[in-house]
């Protein structure tokens, strides 16, 4: 372990200050990056950061971005993301980022400064009840009231964040605690009597599930973010290959199974493919792996349940099981471990399958596929947003890390960028936080300095964290922003078109900045693309600038909508397709 403490930093004995202890804890956890923003309550901590060179601190321009960047660092690496913010507004600015990570089960440790213990409750300057405010959107949080508790609390925080169903854990540390001294002793192990997440699935249930899957006439696999977070892609691939099952994925699960595989039916849900949604509705045995039957995924629950099917659900979180849909065969456990057990069973028992039925099921699926629901009308005048994503996929050979914001562009990125690997598709699925795209790209690029990182965004979302253009300049992050600029809050406009008789209430944005000049003002390269014929060239030119941050402003067709679409309250098989209009 590398640890550089300047002489005179600690007091004369071997004791360390709370701030120094905190830094040592981060060293012990092999933290590479801390994303943060200084302020009064964390000044001791920042002074200790000044004296160390083991991890790199990334100075953002707004605390929300620190949280998103740490979150994306975690999503793209599987390691715990770390953020550091000050008390009061620092903490409240962090809340959106914490809630975003919580909804998508991202392991993070957030350190927040707090006013000194003696001032707590007195409405001190920059005081807020951070533990109270964040309680509903963290996996757990702590208020450290004694310097002696810092090390053990940090150990617990990292353990809780990364184990079981992962999630953000916040540690609130009053300023005086970071100035007190004590011996540093980082615990090697941690045990919480109240927290023992199950990892191994019940073998009897796994056997039952396998029997159902092999005897099924119309089996279907529905994979979610749990496969990505649980690093279970290879095991899932093995299962699909050995049983030859059709598979779909949620928005969060994209990349967990390669999009180019013939067994893959594309994403399901509100903007999923025709074949995925029809197969999901019509199957007789459904295996859900690390997914949670979200309202955006199964549409109208009653409609979904109107077709009887046997449901097997693998999930690490018991509370995910039978939460929205009654599960017939629950398997609580780590998806990777459960899938490994299932694959082993297949290898030893070589179960017989209903091959004739399976073949006719695939015939039906192919019939649905022949609808070619992802086709869109190309234009020679206007840039179609789908086309930009297709070209992005081509130019980056499908190997880029793609972050997105929230809205139409997010759906197009999910639909048309065919993800082959897990942890390449970074977006806010659960909370749907506009503004994540750029800070997400920062976290990813820092974690993978030589990788191609594309931030697919819209002119609405990008402006929610546009200040981070400055951070990207400071750390020379060669991100490529792919902005699909339709001068509308596109998804809002789409809904207003469908459900509010085209009353575009507040969904048009006037007075947009000149994004090219804006990018240039921050020292970046800016490009505006207005013709379909220039799309590919511009993308190639941008990605050829390997060391530069390039902001591509694609002026796209204002009227384009996302299809297929399941309207609110409708069922999976009640999609509107582009061809229907």
């Amino acid at each position, binding site marked *: 372990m590398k640890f550089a403490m300047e002489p005179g930093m600690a007091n004369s004995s071997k004791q360390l200050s709370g701030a120094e202890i905190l830094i040592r804890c981060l060293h012990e956890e092999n933290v590479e990056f801390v994303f943060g923003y200084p302020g009064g309550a964390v000044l001791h901590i920042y002074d200790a950061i000044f004296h160390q060179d083991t991890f790199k601190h990334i100075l953002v321009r707004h605390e929300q971005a620190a949280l998103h960047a740490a979150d994306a660092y975690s999503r793209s690496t599987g390691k715990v993301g770390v953020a550091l913010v000050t008390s009061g507004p620092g903490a409240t600015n962090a809340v959106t980022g914490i809630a975003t990570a919580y909804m998508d089960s991202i392991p993070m440790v957030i350190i927040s400064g707090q006013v000194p213990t003696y001032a707590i409750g007195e409405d001190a300057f920059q005081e807020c009840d951070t*533990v*109270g405010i964040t*309680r*509903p959107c963290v*996996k*757990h949080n702590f*208020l450290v009231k004694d310097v002696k508790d810092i090390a053990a609390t940090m150990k617990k925080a990292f353990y*809780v964040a990364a184990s079981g169903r992962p999630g953000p854990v916040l540690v609130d540390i009053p300023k005086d605690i970071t100035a007190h001294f004590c011996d540093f002793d980082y615990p090697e192990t941690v045990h*919480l*009597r*109240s*927290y023992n997440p199950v990892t191994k699935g019940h073998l009897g249930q796994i056997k039952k599930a396998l029997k159902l899957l092999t005897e099924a006439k119309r089996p279907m696999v529905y994979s979610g973010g749990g496969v990505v977070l649980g690093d279970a892609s290879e095991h899932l691939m093995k299962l699909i290959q050995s049983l030859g099952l059709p598979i779909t994925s949620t928005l969060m699960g994209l990349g967990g199974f390669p999009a180019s595989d013939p067994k893959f039916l594309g994403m399901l849900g509100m903007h999923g493919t025709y074949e995925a949604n029809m197969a999901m509705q019509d199957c007789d045995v459904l295996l859900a792996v690390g997914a949670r039957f979200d309202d955006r995924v199964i549409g109208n629950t009653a409609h979904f349940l109107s077709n009887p099917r046997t449901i097997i659900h693998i999930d690490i*979180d*018991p*509370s995910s*099981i*039978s*939460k929205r849909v*009654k599960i017939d065969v629950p398997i609580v456990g780590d998806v990777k471990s459960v899938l490994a057990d299932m694959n082993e069973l297949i290898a030893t028992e070589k179960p017989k399958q209903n091959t004739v039925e399976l073949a006719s099921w695939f015939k039906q699926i192919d019939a649905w596929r022949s609808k070619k629901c992802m086709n869109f009308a190309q234009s020679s005048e206007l840039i179609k947003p789908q086309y930009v994503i297709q070209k992005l996929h081509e130019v980056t050979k499908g190997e880029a890390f793609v972050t997105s914001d929230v809205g139409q562009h997010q759906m197009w990125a999910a639909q048309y960028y065919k993800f082959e690997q897990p942890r390449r598709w970074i977006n806010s699925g659960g909370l749907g936080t506009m503004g994540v795209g750029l800070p997400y790209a920062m976290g990813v690029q820092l974690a993978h300095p030589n990788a191609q990182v594309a931030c697919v965004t819209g002119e609405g979302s990008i402006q929610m964290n546009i200040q981070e253009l400055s951070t990207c300049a400071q750390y020379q992050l060669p991100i490529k922003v792919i902005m699909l600029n339709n001068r509308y809050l596109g998804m809002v406009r789409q809904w207003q078109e469908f459900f509010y008789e085209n009353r575009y209430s507040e969904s048009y944005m006037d007075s947009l900045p000149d994004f090219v000049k804006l990018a240039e003002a921050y020292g970046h390269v800016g490009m505006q693309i207005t013709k379909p014929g220039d799309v590919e060239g511009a993308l190639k030119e941008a990605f050829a600038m390997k060391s530069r941050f390039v902001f591509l402003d694609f002026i796209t067709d204002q009227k384009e909508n996302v299809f297929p679409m399941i309207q609110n309250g409708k069922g999976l098989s009640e999609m509107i397709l582009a061809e229907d209009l």
Partner: protein
Amino acid sequence: MATTARHIISLLMENESGALSRVAGLFSARGYNIESLTVAPTEDPTLSRMTIVTSGSDEVIEQIIKQLNKLIDVVKVLDLNDGKFIERELMLVKVKATGTFREEMKRMCDIFRGRIIDVADGSFTIELTGSGTKLDAFIESLDKSAILETVRTGASGIGRGDRILKV
């Protein structure tokens, strides 16, 4: 449609500051009913025991138990309704005790096996223990105009016989 039923949930949790608000917050955030909630440390001062009276369909109760178990500070959760149990609640009622009321109150208190624990010129304070329904019945049987003040603890519950909730 699933029918809702009253359930008494007992749980043991780390006796730490904020633990109560984690449980209370969970109920409000997820829209679960909460009829009463009582909490106090156990014989092991590091643990608190909480009794929550709630109602919901079997599915909702199942979710409540799972969500409670998910809280990091919660050590054990038990739905007392899964077996035989005893439920007790304490109520203090201050009633008018003037004129004919004085004798009437004494009599009612005896019938319900309560105790008069404070006597003043114009009032009695009655202590009554029992199930929630018994306490309700007592209130019902009193002349409304005689009730000056009531305070109830909310139910505490414990399993019968060998049903033991312990770490």
